[in-house]
């Protein structure tokens, strides 16, 4: 009960939980924290929703959707339709992408308000255990910027029993190939091209590199992808990424594997990259733009972590299974707390972190059950161990495969290329991993994720009725194949 008017303002800077960073990890953590009855605030310096929905996951999906529809229009004849003088307006494509991002960005502000989470605008720094000092944003914002939500708090000193660092990550920079925003792009610039480049070099074939390669190829650019590892999308099962590579090569994307960019020269016609392959041979590639997509590094700087003795390792904060750092009262979740650097991992890590703070009976996340999705064409999705990793771990495995060409819905969709692969522990029937390439597989993978989380065995999957006609039927067929019982092949 407030007796003195002064109490309110005093209490205003005191919280149970302060979260630094409003990306998908941070804002979800804030909502869960508020649901648990904690007085919660979130500190954001730039954009509600973080990279994910301003410069990452969401706006790229909008771009890729434009590319997909453009692709279908080009192939209208295959479906008995006609479309003539097909073209696109790059500015309009980008505008739609920004609009999608903007809509969701505004949504986060609404969610914070609905859950009574205070937004503090500025750069947060943990000045001592239990204290966050917020100062004016120093970082130059990436344009175009969405508006700052209304009713935010500003600079000042705030107290909280628990401070959760959720500051995310930023593009890794290779010395000598520093992005300049003009010829050498990161995902920021690649998201808002002033015009479609005629030619493009993509450095790195992880999810970000491959998605931009796919987008720009569909929009007509000549694309070459350079990857240091022997397979593209190196975290994926090699059989699956091999199939994806074949598909993309058919579309005209060129790949240089086991190769690295030695140096880059900028000239009037764009960039010339000297690429060195494993055998020591060098070749020069020239393109209008180069996208650097060689991974991301955690945002651990200027947070006061070093001064407080918070342990970090290779650019990430070191945490236990519940997001706790070595300093009591300071937690970290999401990209800044280490790989896999995925939005859904960050969200769940945050939920576990606050639930643990609230004394709930929670268990650390099993990182083997975090799915990964890449929205190139064809899409790639996976969860769990790849075939080589399962063997490496000493499992005696059963592997099932089912091709899209054996599925009625896939044929009807005109998407006969792809495969669903499942890996089981031969001894226990545990689903160790599932890997997919083909149309809409990013929407399918969750079925296996649920199955793995519920610890189903092959038996339960075989007893599950999958609807016909759907692509999901292939998920059951793949399981049946692993046990020599495949039906439609």
């Amino acid at each position, binding site marked *: 009960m407030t007796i003195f008017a002064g109490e309110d303002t005093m209490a205003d800077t005191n919280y149970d939980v302060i979260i630094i960073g409003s990306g998908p990890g941070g804002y979800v953590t804030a909502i869960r924290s508020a649901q648990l009855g904690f007085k919660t605030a979130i500190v954001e310096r730039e954009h509600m929703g973080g990279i994910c929905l301003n410069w990452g996951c969401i706006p790229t999906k909008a771009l890729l959707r434009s590319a997909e529809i453009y692709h279908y229009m080009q192939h209208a004849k295959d479906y008995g339709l006609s479309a003539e003088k097909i073209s696109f307006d790059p500015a309009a494509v980008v505008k739609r992408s920004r609009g999608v991002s903007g809509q969701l960005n505004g949504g986060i502000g609404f969610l914070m308000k609905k859950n009574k989470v205070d937004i503090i605008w500025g750069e947060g720094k943990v000045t001592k255990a239990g204290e966050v000092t917020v100062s004016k944003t120093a970082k130059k914002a990436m344009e175009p910027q969405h508006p700052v939500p209304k009713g935010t708090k500003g600079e000042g000193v705030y107290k909280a029993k628990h401070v959760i660092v959720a500051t995310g990550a930023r593009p890794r920079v290779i010395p000598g190939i520093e992005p300049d925003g003009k010829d050498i792009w990161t995902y920021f610039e690649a998201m808002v091209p002033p015009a479609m480049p005629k030619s493009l070099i993509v450095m790195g074939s992880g999810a970000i590199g491959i998605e931009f390669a796919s987008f720009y190829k569909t929009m007509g650019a000549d694309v070459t992808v350079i990857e240091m590892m022997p397979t593209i999308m190196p975290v994926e099962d090699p059989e699956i990424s091999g199939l994806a590579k074949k598909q993309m090569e058919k579309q005209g994307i060129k790949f240089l594997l086991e190769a690295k960019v030695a140096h880059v020269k900028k000239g009037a016609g764009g960039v010339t990259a000297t690429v060195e392959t494993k055998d020591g041979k060098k070749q020069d590639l020239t393109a209008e733009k180069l996208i650097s997509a060689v991974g991301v590094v955690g945002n651990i700087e200027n947070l006061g972590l070093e001064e407080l003795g918070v342990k970090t390792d290779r650019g990430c904060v070191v945490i236990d299974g519940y997001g706790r750092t070595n300093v009591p009262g300071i937690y970290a979740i999401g990209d800044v707390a280490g790989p896999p650097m995925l939005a859904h991992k960050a969200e769940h890590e945050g939920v576990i972190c606050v639930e643990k703070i609230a004394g709930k009976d929670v268990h650390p996340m099993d990182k083997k059950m975090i799915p990964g999705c890449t929205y190139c064409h064809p899409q790639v999705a996976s969860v769990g161990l790849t075939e080589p990793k399962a063997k490496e771990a000493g499992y005696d495995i059963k592997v099932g495969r089912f091709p899209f060409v054996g599925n009625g819905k896939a044929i009807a969709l005109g998407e006969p290329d792809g495969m669903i692969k499942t890996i089981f522990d031969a001894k*226990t*029937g*545990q689903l160790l991993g599932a890997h997919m390439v083909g149309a809409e597989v990013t929407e399918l993978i969750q079925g296996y994720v649920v199955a793995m989380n519920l*610890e189903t065995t092959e*038996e339960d999957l075989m007893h599950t009725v999958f609807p016909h006609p759907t692509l999901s039927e292939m998920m059951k067929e793949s399981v049946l194949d692993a046990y020599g019982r495949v039906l439609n092949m």
Partner: protein
Amino acid sequence: MPINITMPALSPTMEEGNLAKWLVKEGDSVSAGDVIAEIETDKATMEVEAVDEGKVGKIVVPAGTQGVKVNELIAVLLEDGEDASAIDTSAGAAAAPAGGDKVPAVPESAPAVEVGAKAATDPVPAPITADGGRIFASPLARRLAQLNGLDLTALSGSGPHGRIVKRDIEAALAAGTGKAAPAAAEAPKAVAAAAPTGPSADQVLKLFDEDSYELVPHDGMRKTIAKRLTESKQTIPHFYVSVDVELDALLALRAQLNGAAATDKDGKPAYKLSVNDMTIKALALALRDVPDANVSWTDDNMVMHKHADVGVAVAIPGGLITPIIRRAEEKPLSVVSNEMKDLGKRAKERKLKPEEYQGGTTAVSNMGMMGVKNFSAVVNPPHATILAVGAGEQRAVVKDGDLAVATVMTVTLSTDHRCVDGALGAELLAAFKGYIENPMSMLV
């Protein structure tokens, strides 16, 4: 078409039973509801009623057959106009539950103890607890338990809502707990009974000369007692509280009430209260007054019972059984007494229905009539408490500084310390003592 009558499951845990007696013979006509056979299970003898009408075409399992599996074909009923030639003998024991099986949701086979004998792809049935509750375990956990010979009923789960998941199996394997009895592994038909650890049958028998003993196979009741009580002592942290209570006022009231009982035309009184009946009532009222002690433990929640359902241990030849006086706190003493007489009589005849002995929120075990001074009883889950009652005897007591004689009995409350702590147990006993020593308060 002939109707198959199969061995019914008389309780959710029943896996097999003995076909004690046929009340019909081949050629007899029966109509729905007729009692056709008596079946003996671990705890009770039950009657089997015909569900359809027809003529008994063939009795497949003769009377006196032991260990008839649930769902096994026991007889075939012929419909109008059919004769015995219509019976398809190939239906055999594997016949699907049909006509005669009136009990739904029957567990199909024994718990998964056939280690190694089964291929990994064989279905692993969902296990059930001794009192018929489903054990929540992930399919992978069930499979791992089967492969490693673990008894899921001996494990507790750390998954959502106490579900047993892979990590619980791994923890049990690391700790070496939860092993199914080795004997059970060898004889898949046997209910996993004996102590999870402990000497094997061979180890025990080796200690004695071969002609110095006789082996008496365990019946279902013995196995159930062994399993349940081992489980109780291994999983429930027992805590004991004893108190002496004076009985003189209670004995006086009892004599007065029994003397006032109305008699029917044969001169039989409407009730005859025993000390035990009054003990049951006093415990029920004490639980009403101290509701925090009227609970059951589950991993996620405290089950706060709204009524005191008092189980009463009844010794019967070959074991014991605990019929339950439901809502004992609401019932007048005369009703408690008469119910107890009926339950006790039928318990001795093994004629109790499962719902009459399953569940309950507490129990009373009275050995006073055998001259026992005091003892400690084993909590019978899902109960959190059990009251062990000793003999009422004249003892020297000190009253107001003078030596006096009073009739005193010692009672010992065993509690499940996970849900009834020591002080709470003491509070419950204090309330109990209050009712026994001021027995008129039980009447209001």
